[in-house]
């Protein structure tokens, strides 16, 4: 653990009162609640964590929660901070980080809105990115049975050529 990193972790602990897990000298994990996320991102950006390298969603089906993960990278300190936050799976609404990270966050949020149905409040453009004219459920949700969906929408049971898919 370098000196910069230990300073940073102690600062985070006093400022946000969350558990900070240090994996190695370039990696920090921390949890946040959704209301605090924007403040946290702003604070990190002022600290030099200017690069939002990814946003991802994990679908926890049993817990009925989405886990959103934000990866922030600092070019000066060479540390990757991973912020995790959990939101309700049925009503996935969270504040957008576009006011903090601008277009960088915009494209990530657009993708997640399409694939998981997460609504990012404040993002101006959430039009579909990959799927056009998509009418099915959000495809990356774990309760989406894509095999059934494919059978319904593409295959015909009476067709001699496509019978094998129903065996």
């Amino acid at each position, binding site marked *: 653990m370098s000196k910069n990193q230990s300073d940073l972790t102690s600062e985070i602990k006093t400022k946000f009162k969350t558990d900070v897990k240090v994996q190695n000298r370039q990696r920090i994990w921390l949890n946040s609640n959704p209301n605090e996320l924007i403040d946290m991102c702003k604070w990190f950006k002022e600290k030099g964590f200017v690069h939002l390298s990814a946003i991802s969603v994990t679908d926890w089906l049993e817990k009925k929660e989405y886990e959103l993960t934000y990866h922030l990278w600092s070019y000066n300190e060479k540390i990757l901070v991973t912020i995790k936050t959990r939101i309700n799976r049925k009503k996935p609404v969270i504040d957008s980080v576009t006011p903090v990270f601008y277009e960088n966050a915009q494209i990530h949020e657009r993708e997640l809105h399409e694939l998981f149905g997460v609504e990012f409040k404040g993002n101006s453009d959430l039009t579909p990115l*990959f*799927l*056009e*004219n*998509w009418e*099915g459920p959000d*495809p990356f949700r774990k309760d989406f049975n*894509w*095999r059934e*969906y*494919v059978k319904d*929408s*593409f*295959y015909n049971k009476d067709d001699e050529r496509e019978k094998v*898919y129903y065996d």
Partner: protein
Amino acid sequence: MVKIVKKLIYYGGRIVVKRSEKAKTMRKLIKAIWIFNWFNSCGFAELVPLVGSRWDMERFGMIIVGTPRHADVLFIAGYQTHKSLERAKRVYEQMAEPRVVLALGSCTMTGGMYWDSYNTIKKLEDYLPVTMYIPGCPPRPEAVFEACEKIFEHVKELE
């Protein structure tokens, strides 16, 4: 003596086979086919050996043109999504008649390894009028040439 030398240069020193009657009629019928490519994913890798020096499709006058308006044949390869298919239809509509669609590879026939994917189409014939399927993953260059020869045989039926 001079005449013989000229002849050797003209034929490149090789034995020349006399053209068959079928080839002669075909020569009157057709021009060289010009191709427009519409490739998704690994589909492009299938046609690269065809363009390269070993199979060299340009010896038959087959060239890849920059716009569908100049093309006779549309090569479609790789899996097609609903998004890419909209563009493929636009490409197809721009081509002059008679137009031919050759679908390469197993992805265009059955979906290939994407048979249970939710956003790729399974059979291209449901969306575009496919003239011929060339099976294989990827199809051999010889198979592509054979398909092109079959276009010549059936060119009158296309009109």
